[in-house]
Structures are given as C-alpha cells and as structure tokens.
C-alpha cells in the first residue's frame, strides 16, 4: 500500500504560519478575483524612463511568494495562462512574478491528475488533508519547512464531478463542437446575440473575474516634475466600448472596429471558444463560475452555450 503524507485540519494554521515565515503568503481562499492577479496585476508599472538620465528601468519582482488555497479549477487556469503567456513569445512581466511563486492548491477529494500547482492539499474523508507534492519546487518547500507530516496508507476515491457549471464542464470535453457551434451562432442563431446585447451592461466584470482573460492596454503617464515617465499595463476588457477604437483626428470621432455591444460581447465568447480552440486546441474556460456569479445582468454563460449547442446540433441533424 502506497504511503501518503497527511496534515490534520487543526494543524493547518500552524502550517500556514510556518509557510509565512519562508515567503510572503497570500491566502486566496475567499478571493473574488482569480489568482492571475498575482502574476498579471490589474495595474502594473512595467517600465520607468527618466528624461534627464535617459535611463529605462524594467520592473522586477525579486522575492518569492506563496499562494495558498487555490482551487483545482484555478490551478488548471494558471497552467493554461502559463501557456498563453509563453507562446509564441514569453511575456517577461508575467513570468518574472510567476517564476517567484509557489502554488498551493486546496481541494476536496476530487482529483485525478494534478492540473497544476506545486503542492495540493486534498481533503480526505476525515478532518485531515493529504499533502500531494506536484513539483520539485513544492518538494523543496516542504523539505525546508520541516513540518511534521504524518504518513498514512493511500485511499483511492472516485473522482467527483464538477460542482459548478456541470453541463458546460461536460461540453468542454468537446472544444471542437463548441468552436463550431459558437462560430455558427453569429449568423445561424443571431437572435441570441441580439438578446444578450440588450442584457450586457458593458461593465467588463466577467473578464476581470475570469481566471483566463488576459487582454490588456498600456498607458503612459508622466510625474509632476515632468522627468519621470511610467508605462503602465492594465487589465482591459474586450466588452468595453473603447476596446477596439482608433483615433480619428481633430474633430473626427475615430473608428471603433467593434462598435456595438453585440459585436463586443460575441467577441468575448469568440475568443474563449473559437480562437482559444484554434490557437491552443481547447476552450479558454475552466468553468469556475465567476462570470455567472458576478455578472450584474445575471448572464449565465453556461445557459447561453448549452442553448447554442442544442440549436446547432438540431440544425446539423436536419441538414444530414
């Protein structure tokens, strides 16, 4: 029987405080915003430029930090975001922080293969966790910590099903179908996009809470002395009206390439389920459910996608 390391529930606080002594610790258990913000913050100064010395300074993080309490779905999202930020060329600002991070997942019993992270605490039946070491980085941290973990016989559990967005979770196993259906829906089922355009408030919240959305804009500013210039990278949202707008010149309104809510909201789906599939072979969604939970207009993307796929399949059947 294979032995596993375990940690008692009541030891968790001591475990965490010891972790906190090794590196800065962020407990993300109750976080509304996804863990992407630790590697890709909502605002970050990327470069500073001094007009007098003409020196360019690049922002760098030098200290290690630990994220504790990441859900399985968020771990999966970080692994995917690593890929997005790696290809076709490495995003230095993201990886500067990502490389300094140690990820500790916190899950229920459910999981087959670890979707990411360095260590995963898996809640067992009783009031204890199995400490699953995923990477060398995680192994090193545990070794340095020297925390007394108990050994115990490994118990196999059945992998439980996704608790959020169950139907969408199932649909995601066929990203090609989602690609085809969403692509078809623009013309084939335009009614749904007309309806959603009337509901979407253009607030961008769905993109901010999404653990995979990564679009950004860059904004420069100058300090009051006029010498220090800062280049700031900020989260943007493809649903915001200015997202695809270019200047038009003095007295001219400029042109937006995604002028209506309908185009912009569809583009968000298009990125997740069409371009995501074309670029990476999978949809850009891990069914964390945040977009639905925090949408002020109560749009449920699961409902939307299930509806689209249903209509698409029906059309396909009648064509055959």
């Amino acid at each position: 029987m294979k032995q596993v390391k375990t940690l008692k529930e009541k030891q968790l606080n001591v475990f965490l405080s010891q972790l906190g002594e090794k590196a800065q610790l962020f407990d993300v258990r109750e976080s509304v915003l996804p863990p992407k913000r630790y590697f890709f913050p909502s605002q970050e100064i990327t470069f500073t430029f001094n007009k007098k010395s003409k020196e360019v300074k690049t922002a760098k993080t030098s200290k290690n930090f630990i994220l504790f309490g990441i859900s399985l779905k968020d771990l999966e999202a970080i692994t995917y975001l690593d890929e997005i930020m790696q290809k076709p060329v490495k995003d230095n600002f993201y990886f500067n922080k990502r490389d300094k991070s140690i990820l500790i997942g916190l899950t229920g019993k459910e999981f087959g293969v670890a979707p990411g992270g360095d260590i995963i605490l898996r809640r067992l039946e009783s009031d204890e966790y199995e400490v699953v070491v995923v990477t060398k980085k995680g192994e090193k941290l545990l070794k340095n910590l020297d925390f007394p973990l108990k050994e115990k016989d490994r118990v196999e559990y059945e992998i439980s099903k996704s608790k959020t967005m169950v139907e969408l979770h199932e649909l995601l196993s066929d990203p090609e179908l989602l690609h085809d259906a969403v692509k078809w829906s623009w013309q084939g089922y335009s009614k749904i996009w007309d309806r959603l355009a009337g509901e979407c408030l253009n607030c961008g919240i769905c993109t901010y809470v999404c653990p995979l959305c990564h679009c950004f804009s860059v904004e420069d500013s100058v300090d009051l002395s006029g010498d220090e210039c800062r280049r700031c990278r900020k989260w943007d949202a493809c649903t915001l009206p200015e997202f695809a707008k270019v200047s038009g010149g003095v007295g001219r309104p400029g042109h937006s390439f995604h002028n209506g809510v309908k185009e912009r909201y569809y583009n968000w789906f298009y990125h997740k389920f069409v371009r995501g599939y074309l670029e990476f072979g999978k949809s850009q969604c891990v069914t964390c459910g945040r977009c639905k939970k925090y949408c002020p207009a109560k749009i449920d993307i699961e409902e939307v996608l299930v509806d689209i796929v249903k209509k698409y399949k029906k059309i396909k059947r009648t064509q055959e």
Partner: protein
Amino acid sequence: MKTVSEFLKVMQNIYEPIPVKIQKIQEYSESVKLFRLAKLDGSAFPLNEKGLVFMPGQFILAGMWGYGESPFGPASHPNDSSCIEIIVRKVGQVTSAFHSLKEGDELTLRGPYGNGYPVDFFSGKDVILVTGGCGIPPIASLIEHIISNRNDFGEVHLLYGATTPDDLLMKDRMNEWRKKINVVLTVDKPACNWDGNTGFVTDCLEHLKINPANTVAAMCGPGPMISAIENLLNPIGIPDRRIFVSMERKMQCGVGRCQHCVCGDKYVCTDGPVFNLDEIDKAWDK
C-alpha cells in the same frame, strides 16, 4: 500559427523598445510629417533572413516615453539599414506628441512585426498597387523593393488618390518611381496647376490594360476603397486570393496577446497586417 520575427526570440524583454534618433523631419502638411529614424550610435538596423530591415508591409511600434506607442508601416527602402522612415498623421495623443518633436530628438522603436506583402508570390506577376492619402507608406516600401528587384516583376502600376494634390505624399520620390513603374495619381479636388487625374482610384483602374490571369493587387486604404476595388477586380478575373490588403487596428502589444487587434480568427499584429481579401471576407467582424 502566429508569425514571430526572429529578433523577438532573442530579446531580453519583448516589450522593451530601443531608443532611436530623429535624423530628419519632412513636413508634408500641417498634420502629416515624415520622420527618419536612426540608431543612436549610427549603427545599422538588423537585417532579416532576406537581408532586409523589414518586409514591405510589416509594421513597427514607434513610441515616446510618457505618451505611448503606435503602429506604423515603414515607408523607407527595406534595403536601407541606416534608417527607418515613418509617416505620421496627427490624429491622437501619441501622434500629436510626435509632431511636437524636432530633428535630433529621440523616439523609441520596437519591431518589425507581422507578415508583410507576399513578395515571393508577387514575383513574375503584374502588380497593381492601390492606395489613398496616408496609406502610401507600406506601398512605398513595396515599390522600392520592386524597383530594386525590377526584373522579378512584370508590369507594375501605382494608383494613388487623395483629396487634394497637397494630400498626395512622397511626391519627391515619385520621379524615381516613374522611371521604373507606371504611376497614376488622382485627386477629388484638383488645384489650378494640377495635371493629373480627377476622381477616385477606381476610375483610374478602369483605364488600365490588365492581364488578369497573371495579376496581383496590393492595397492599403480605407474599407470603402477596398470594397470598390474588389468590385472592379473580381469581375475581370482577379479573385480575392490575389488581392492583398494591409489592415488597420488598434494595437498595444504587437505579439498577439493583448487582443485589441483581433479580427475574427486572426490577429492583425501576428497573422497580418497583410491579408488576402478571401481571409478578410470570412472573418465575422471584417
């Protein structure tokens, strides 16, 4: 798959631009200026595998600290590694800041990015180049490339239109171009000393003698101009796959990540900025 220039793979930080000096400013009009940019130490810009500074139609991101960066298709000769020339129309914050600068001042540069016009596909064929107003830069670099390799191409026609004769840019280079290619200029509002054509570029196109089976078209211009040209070329036997257009979109990163330039399945910055019209027509948000 996304196109990534070789230089990006060796860069320390893909977002860090290099400083460049404004060697020369040429004022075309109150709102349009040409900037010749050179390395601070006077060294040459790196060459790609074809021995060019950039492919005609590729773009660079020129910037100014404190104001930001904007995409420009260079207008200079792609063989000339001593400088990169861009033409800047004052339209927004970044371009207005550029216009406040003088010769000797510094800007920043990243790139080149994107694909450029498929010059290898053009070789052996007749080429129709169509553009208007400020769309001339990438076409100009393509013309320079064609002229440097003149025997590789058949008949070459430039159809260039603008509102008034003063809005026609790069007239100083056209005498050289005229020796090697057919240059047709047209304006909407002629001045009294204007001896060129009056009307749209489409009117000039109708007067060209074309062998459609062996002709390609390259364009840089606004949507209505592109549609009008497409509507003329398709019926005479030049299909969308042989018509290439440089697209304009908002851009921030240049490497296919920030999402601002998406156009259906494509990223204008990495899959483009040059597309054939067939690719564009199939995009849901063309």
